[in-house]
């Protein structure tokens, strides 16, 4: 009955979009390309939210700022290379290939430290205590970035191949190398994550811990290490997301993570919180919805649309798109 309402709303949205697609297919495809690129980045951040929520039921408010800090740190490391923003050189390629894993590992380390300091001591405290420390850590990270570069927008070196020779128009749709790069990188990372979660022993331990912490402890799983690993992997993706965001938009600001984090969290809920493929799909869908709403409704209403969807999904289908019904504990 309630699900019915959900399908009706989805159906209406699809029909409305289809009429737009038929009346001006080129513009529609163009918007879709932008939406997919944005959505790929949201998906990377959303995965961290959903993994942490799945395992310790914490809305990790600091995660969006981990994402932004990833962008800041990668911009700083790229400064050490003799990069060329005018043309794509071999140095640029080496810099990107080297900095990606370095930033991911640094962010993973930072997130593990955050978990160790701010969340682990509160594992048996009232449920809201870690939420408050998460908010506190979010302020700390924003404070660090504010102290570092101040309130102004920070330039991120434009080192991906760009310019007339790296963009093309396919049937009226303008596509750049950057769009493709963002999507491919995100798909590769999400695939690696899926393989890790489903094929490795640690991934299995993470799934078990998310299902039932006490039972998995009895099975000999080291809970603390598993939770730390979850934070580490979430931050790997967020760090990569921050760098991709910088490479794509070429600017960052200290509280970028706040809004991006909220949108990514919405994506995680949309896909079914705690569900890893759900977060990836939710991120892409929210990116698309934001892009459609930007062009067809007006960008000033996009936030209302996104959070309206959030409320609608929770009311009509609380488990999200892919979530399973979980009995109340």
């Amino acid at each position: 009955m309630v699900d019915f309402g959900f399908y009706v709303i989805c159906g209406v949205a699809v029909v409305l979009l289809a009429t737009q697609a038929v009346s001006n297919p080129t513009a529609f495809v163009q918007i879709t390309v932008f939406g997919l690129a944005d959505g790929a980045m949201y998906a990377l951040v959303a995965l961290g939210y959903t993994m942490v929520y799945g395992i310790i039921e914490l809305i990790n408010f600091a995660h969006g700022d981990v994402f932004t800090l990833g962008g800041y740190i990668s911009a700083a490391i790229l400064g050490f290379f003799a990069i060329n923003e005018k043309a794509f050189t071999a140095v640029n390629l080496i810099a990107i290939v080297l900095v990606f894993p370095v930033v991911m590992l640094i962010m993973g380390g930072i997130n593990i430290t955050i978990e160790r300091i701010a969340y682990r001591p509160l594992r048996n405290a009232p449920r809201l205590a870690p939420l408050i420390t998460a908010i506190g850590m979010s302020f700390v990270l924003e404070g660090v970035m504010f102290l570092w570069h101040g309130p102004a927008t920070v330039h991120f070196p434009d080192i991906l191949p760009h310019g007339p020779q790296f963009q093309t128009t396919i049937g009226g749709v303008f596509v750049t190398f950057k769009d493709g790069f963002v999507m491919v990188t995100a798909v590769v990372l999400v695939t690696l994550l899926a393989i890790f979660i489903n094929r490795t022993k640690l991934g299995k331990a993470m799934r078990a811990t998310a299902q039932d912490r006490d039972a998995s402890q009895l099975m000999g799983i080291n809970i603390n290490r598993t939770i730390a690993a979850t934070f580490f992997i979430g931050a790997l993706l967020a760090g990569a997301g921050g760098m991709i965001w910088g490479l794509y938009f070429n600017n960052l600001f200290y509280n970028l993570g706040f809004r991006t984090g909220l949108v990514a969290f919405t994506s995680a809920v949309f896909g079914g919180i705690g569900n890893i493929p759900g977060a990836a799909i939710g991120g892409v869908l929210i990116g698309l919805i934001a892009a459609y709403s930007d062009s067809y409704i007006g960008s000033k209403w996009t936030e209302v649309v996104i959070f309206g969807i959030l409320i609608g999904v929770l009311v009509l289908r609380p488990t999200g798109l892919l979530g399973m019904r979980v009995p109340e504990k």
Partner: protein
Amino acid sequence: MTEPAAVKRRSLMARLHLRERIRDRDQAIYGILFLSALVFPMTTLFITGGSTAYISQAAHAGTWVLLAIGLNVVVGFAGLLDLGYAAFFAIGAYTYALFASSQLGTSPLHHNFHLPFFLMLILGMLVAASFGALLGFPTLRLRGDYLAIVTLGFGEIVPVLSYNLPQWTGGINAIGGIDQPWLPAWITGPWAGANSISIIQDATCRNPLAQTQFIPCFSFGFDPVAYYVLIVILIIGAVILVSNLYRSRLGRAWMAIREDEVAAAAMGINTVTTKLLAFAIGASFSGFAGAYYGASFDLVSPDDFLFVVSITVLVMVVLGGMGNISGVIVGALVIYFILNTLLPSLASNAESLANTFGLGSLNTQKGDWPGLYAEVQRLQFLLFGLILVMIMLLRPQGLFPSRVREQELKHAAVVEEETVAEQVPSR
């Protein structure tokens, strides 16, 4: 066989002892707060030689205290996480601002309303409560965390709506020229810096019954002391109301739901209605505070109701000690002090400190260094975050946790230990 009896007697004694302490500590906090609220205006007027700046700041802090008391009903009593509390604050403030200014005259409605403040206080409360009920009704059936997320979304939508509907809310330009509260007369005396006790009636106000007539009255507009008195009275009323609610059947139902929703439902509590009541009552306090805020600040802008506000109030509640009204008031005052006095004053203090220690060169801008003042100002975010983390790590239960709840948790831990101890030797 004698051992269980001994355990029982001891715990009973401990419990009796504890009951006294509950009364003592919370009564003591209330007493201290009340006395300091009483002497605060006189003292600051005396010390500063007649400046009312501190008094108006204290009145502003009172708004936050009201908000924290209201959120405590939702988060502390019923255990529901509300991350969009500022939305109801906004609804209360806008209700007052729209119906007590010339704003609606320029809106598509083309008609001004100038309803009196004390009526609007109630109306703002009702409007916010009905929005709370509207939002809560479909969502409270869901699991606890989903409510947090729905309120988060709602809290994001409300300010965006007020930005995007300028024909109604004034958008980014905000609503100004809001009517001040007024009373037929007001008493002033030495406590407010006057020379003698006298009755003030120095303005003309719209007659609430015949809107075109004006009658002599006392308008709050120019008097921080009046606002201060008003907010103190409102807070006292709210505290009495909420502590009575807490001790009522409804309050016990909230506690039962907070501890175990399934068990509470099995005991015959209608969980949806009970949670809805907590949510709506919490929202109504926020609407109440919003109406006061609109009147005292004379400006209602979407910027005042962002997510940060919801988070700040939540921090006040959790930090003060969830479920304990006196603790929550202290939490609100502490956080307000840190955010509005301690952190902003840090920069100029650091500057003068550097001068006294002969490090004046730090104060001037040089290359990448923006000067000590600017640098310390940038530190504010970081320091606030660190303070939050530190306090939560040191006192995860909050500064003054509810004694009842503390005892429940302690008791649960003891029972667990005892059962383990009993089981081990028998096997």
